[in-house]
């Protein structure tokens, strides 16, 4: 939903970043307002995942230029956990397995950290169990997964559901979902996309990083961006995704060549 007067949640300006001294992002500009759904597409290696990790504060990535303001404040002044508590959520492309750490306990600690920042009361073990069981319905997840270690032995689809469950519990302001659709069969994709749709509101926004039109059939984007060579090369509406499905990315090389980048 595009409302020009809606709150500017994320303002990315000329962002440059590198990993292991290799420049990856080379001037990303993107503004995300409340209520909007943005899709970021592009080939492998174009910088999509790097963008998501930078926004979440991954320590292996270094910002070398530009700025990101989250609700007016410098995002980079915040530790990863502070960003999460203030409502920035990254749905991982490859959710991490943590043997020995109970999923339920992890979810409770995370939920309470966010609630505390929002001025809400922390939930004790019993209250949290009721709370999480409600949220499980959003992703039609089996409660048995709460008893297991975080993501350990989960299938690809179960891991992605667990990500959306975390999103449901943390009630983020801005969600960056990094290839949440990868590795999902059609049914799982519908469930996960349905979860994201249920969780979106006029006050929140999401950035969907994806390779496929398929996800965008389920979650309608307001904007579609194509990333290449570390920046956003083209922006359009949902029709751009449909067009990409037909024409692929060959035009990207031509445009980069014209600009003398490639």
């Amino acid at each position: 939903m595009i409302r020009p007067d809606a709150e500017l949640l994320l303002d990315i300006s000329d962002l440059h970043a590198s990993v292991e001294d290799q420049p990856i992002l080379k001037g990303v500009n993107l503004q995300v307002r409340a209520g909007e759904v943005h899709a970021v597409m592009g080939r492998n290696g174009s910088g999509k995942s790097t963008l998501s990790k930078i926004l979440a504060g991954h320590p292996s990535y270094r910002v070398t230029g530009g700025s990101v303001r989250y609700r007016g404040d410098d995002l980079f002044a915040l530790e990863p956990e502070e960003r999460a508590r203030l409502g920035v959520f990254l749905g991982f492309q490859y959710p991490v397995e943590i043997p020995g750490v109970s999923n339920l306990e992890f979810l409770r600690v995370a939920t309470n950290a966010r609630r505390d920042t929002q001025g809400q009361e922390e939930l004790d073990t019993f209250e949290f169990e009721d709370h999480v069981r409600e949220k499980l319905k959003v992703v039609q997840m089996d409660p048995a997964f709460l008893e297991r270690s975080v993501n350990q032995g989960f299938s690809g689809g179960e891991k992605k559901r667990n990500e959306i469950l975390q999103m449901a519990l943390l009630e983020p302001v801005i969600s960056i979902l990094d290839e949440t659709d990868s590795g999902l069969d059609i049914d799982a994709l519908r469930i996960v996309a349905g979860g994201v749709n249920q969780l979106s509101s006029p006050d929140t926004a999401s950035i969907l990083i994806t390779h496929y039109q398929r996800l965008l059939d389920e979650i309608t984007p307001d904007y579609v961006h194509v990333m290449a060579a570390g920046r956003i090369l083209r922006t359009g509406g949902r029709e751009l995704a449909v067009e990409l499905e037909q024409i692929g990315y060959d035009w990207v090389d031509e445009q980069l060549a014209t600009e003398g980048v490639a």
Partner: protein
Amino acid sequence: MVNTVLAPVQKRGQANLEKLGLPTRRQEAWRLTDLKRLKAMASLPHVAGADQSSWPSVDQGVTRLVIGTDSDPLEGIQLPEGVSPLSEAELEQALGHTLDRCGCAEVWPVELNHAHSRRVLALRVRGSVAPLEIVLAAGDGLIATRVLLLLEEKAELDLLQVIPAERDNAAAPLAHSHVIEVHLGQEARLRHGLLASASGDTSLLAHLAVEQEPRSSYDFVSVCRGWRFGRLEPQVLQVDGQATTRLNGLAMTGGDEQFATHTGVCFQGPEGSLDQLQKAVAADRSHSIFNGAIQVPRAAQRTDASQLSRNLLLSSQARVDAKPELEIVADDVRCAHGATVSQLQQDQLFYLRSRGVAADEAAALLLKGYCCDVVDRLPSVAPSWLASSAVKDPARPL
């Protein structure tokens, strides 16, 4: 009276200690040991008695025996059905037998115990019995305790040994020497936990000798934390093979602590099995040592043994030495071993932090996750100790 049986043992121990002298670094088993600390602990005066106020109350259906004090551990205690003390004649016959068979009757830590222990808790177990707790009371100075357990054919027991030695740093030094001999008859089962939790200037030398008859099952779980100087030596002998041995250990060290675990398993017959996991977490400038010997002589065909040593280093100055020592002569066997040394995984830390969990809390969660596969295997009576101030949670941040 038990003391009469021990008198000649004590005398022999003292003579042997004198003959042996202190171990030196030229001896392989002591190569990495801080011998100054060994000497300091051995020369502490003998004192008995301990403050028991922080101990948890005894769980229902469990019998607690306290050793290391001047009183008789069985005084005023009603032993569970199936458990009885050994007569002096039986004790005379059995004492030292398993140590001998395991080849460790004359090793230094055992001789130290011989020289100092004044009492032995000796029990016979028949049938399936209710859980036992043996608490090794620790006061100031050097305390030596000794236990002998005979599990008859088909006997079953859950045993938790606790050494609560949480003290403040200013407290006088404490040292504990402990020897336990266990004989498992055919088809007997022992689930044996050792929870040794210390802080301050504390030392521990604990030696276990376990003899297993065929089709018996011995499950040993040790969780040791906070000893400034410690050495745990479980030695298991499968006398005719065909038995099951599981060893799970966790050693947590911080500050300038040194803790060594020397395990030895010997199969003297065919078709025995061993499943061993030894974990260590070393923080600050601490030093954790693991030596895992497995002997599979020719008679031990079709042995199935696996040993894994996993080590977590929490500081760049911490040190871990892990050494598997496999001696395999039989040709039709499966013996797997491995050792890993790692740090806390950055991607796991980041995942937790990206969900709002503070960095230190994330590290604490990961540490707990690392320790739980050993801690959770302690016998069922362990949780009340883990929750008490006498022991505390061993997986808490270092």
